[in-house]
């Protein structure tokens, strides 16, 4: 039961991350939802699969994949954001704020 709770949480994170990827207006906002979808959704889903499998060598191998994803996904997100910032992509602003200043 706990395993399916974690898996449901991961699927909800995946769904809303995809919604953010489609709907958001800018590179940086899309990167934010993508990073949440990558780390939180993947960790919740893999923890759910580990709890369902039980404690053996197989679930230890799932733990290795989880630690690898937890280390590398923020690095990839940071690399994409850094290369976009170096190339001079401006962040998205609401037009009301620009007129107000």
């Amino acid at each position, binding site marked *: 039961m706990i395993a399916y709770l974690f898996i449901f949480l991961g699927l909800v994170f995946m769904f809303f991350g995809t919604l953010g*990827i489609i709907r958001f207006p800018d590179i940086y906002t899309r990167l934010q939802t993508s990073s949440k*979808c990558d780390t939180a959704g993947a960790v919740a889903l893999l923890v759910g*699969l580990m709890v369902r499998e039980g404690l053996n060598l197989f679930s230890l191998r799932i733990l290795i994949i989880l630690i690898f*994803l937890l280390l590398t996904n923020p690095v*990839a997100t940071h690399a994409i954001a850094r290369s976009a910032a170096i190339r001079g992509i401006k962040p998205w602003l609401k037009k009301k704020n620009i007129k107000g200043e």
Partner: protein
Amino acid sequence: MTAVTIIITVLGVTASLTLYRVIFGPTSWDRLIAVNLISSKVIMIMVAAAVFFERRIYLDVALVYAIIGFVSIIAISKFLEGEGTGKK
């Protein structure tokens, strides 16, 4: 309708919806973000298939896929950082 059917269906449908951003993305970084997300979802599908169908070899495939995806994302973002987008 079992649990593995729901998991693989939801992950596959969301990966297909992410493909919209790959095709119609305004810049190259949007496409890169979407490809990163699709690779992460494919890894999730492989681990779910390995657990529910008891195919132990799929976990090794998922690990190698994660390593190759990480290296390619780092390499393409370092490439886009310099010249190479075609724009001034």
